[in-house]
């Protein structure tokens, strides 16, 4: 996959930049050009907004059958997390024993390596979650 594909998502993947609708005030992540609730009324009113990085686990799974790029990590925990701002995101939960992960667990964002392009390829980074301190 081409390097720009990762590079152009850096603001959101490194700094949790989402968007806030100037019409209804709802936050979305990643940033959207049009608010799914307000449609045309939101056009030109979508502002960039950084998330606080805290949330709770809505659901989770332990992945045993992993894609090639994640083979070294398996088994790993994947979760859908509801952020304080109300929106939801999907990523891995790290620094947790497999038996300890629970629905409702408070988590916070951690900056981690996500993967790399082949053996000598560019490393790409982004957010994962860990139990809140």
């Amino acid at each position: 996959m081409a390097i720009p594909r990762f590079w152009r998502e850096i603001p959101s993947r490194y700094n949790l930049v989402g968007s806030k609708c100037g019409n209804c005030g709802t936050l979305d992540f990643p940033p959207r050009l049009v608010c799914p609730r307000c449609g045309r009324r939101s056009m030109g009113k979508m502002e960039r907004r950084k998330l606080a990085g805290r949330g709770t686990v809505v659901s989770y799974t332990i992945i045993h059958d992993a894609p090639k790029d994640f083979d070294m990590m398996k088994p790993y925990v994947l979760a859908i997390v509801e952020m304080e701002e109300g929106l939801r995101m999907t990523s891995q939960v790290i620094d947790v024993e497999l038996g300890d992960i629970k629905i409702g667990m408070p988590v916070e964002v951690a900056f981690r390596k996500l993967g790399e392009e082949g053996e000598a390829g560019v490393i790409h980074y982004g957010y994962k979650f860990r139990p809140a301190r």
Partner: protein
Amino acid sequence: MREVSVIGVGETQFGELWDKSFRELGIEAGLRAIQDAEIAAENVDAIYVGNMSAGKFIDQEHVAALVADYAGLADQHLPTIRVEGGGACGAIAIQQAAMAIASGVHDIVVVGGAEKMTDVGDVEAARILSSTTDQEWESVFGATFAGLFAMMARRHMFEYGTTREQLAAVAVKNHKHGALNPVAQFQKEITVEMVLGAPRVAEPLGVFDCAPLSDGAAALVLCSRDKARKFTDTPIDLIGTGQASDFLAVHDRRELTTMDATVIAGKRAFHAARKTPNDVKVAEVHDNFTISEIMAIEDLRFVPKGKGGFATEDGETALNARVSVNTSGGLKARGYPVGATGVAQAVEIVRQLRGEAGKRQVTDAGLGLTHTLGGTGGTAVVHLFARGD
């Protein structure tokens, strides 16, 4: 708008068919449907092909013209249209073909669905299937196709008390049905213990909670209803269709345990047909994972929300119970050649309504439903079929 009927059906064997190529599968199903309809090549006005990812599975795009060519129709210079919508492409192809007939543009259209998945390895096939999820905001973080459905399952268990055994009951039932279907990939019964003891894929789902990788194809001949009687005494009418989309990423949806796309597609189809879920006797629903069937029978209103697991465990969706669900064996046992799915489901429903389903025949099948998902629920399609007499 003209009404539309099915006048011919055909399908291939489903499974790991190493001796058959993509084009051979497509042609085999198509020619069987044409033969079944007793029409000639000159009668066909257009061909619609549902195919998810021949480009990735066999490095071949432009497959609709290819299939028409090898079906011996190159000289007819027919319009050929390939349709993609994740796992729902076959079902969308049916709807598009029906619209072409309803509009008066065409009289007779062949709809095919085909996928050749076993020319690549398991890991590569899983990666291709995952391409219907959000690559930038799900897959890149380690989400797999099974993992996303596993999170729906976990949440369903949390909210409604659905059990691991109830999920397993879906696979057990569908294998039981598959054992009665001579074209099914798995014609062997399994037990709850086998499902629970199978290697884990994405907890709580194990190998037996997942539909297999398959090769296969299916085809229908659709005809305007006013002309259908010229070709068959038992036309099956397509009396309602509904398609709906939703947020592509699972985490953006309103709920993890309801697929709004299914709910809306179902409402649209039932509204068009002036029928209710209680009228349905036989249904093929998209059981790519066991949790998918549980959510589908709830979202289609066959059972109340949260009761899908309990109803399955109690046998309410078994052959000739209240509503017979996945009599073909479903995606789980008949097989899951992605692009063929929606069309293969329709073939089964037509056979049931004609009374040609053999050992798995549903008694008094008057109204049948197909439900097909694209991706993790970003698309859903529902079709309703009824006997034409």
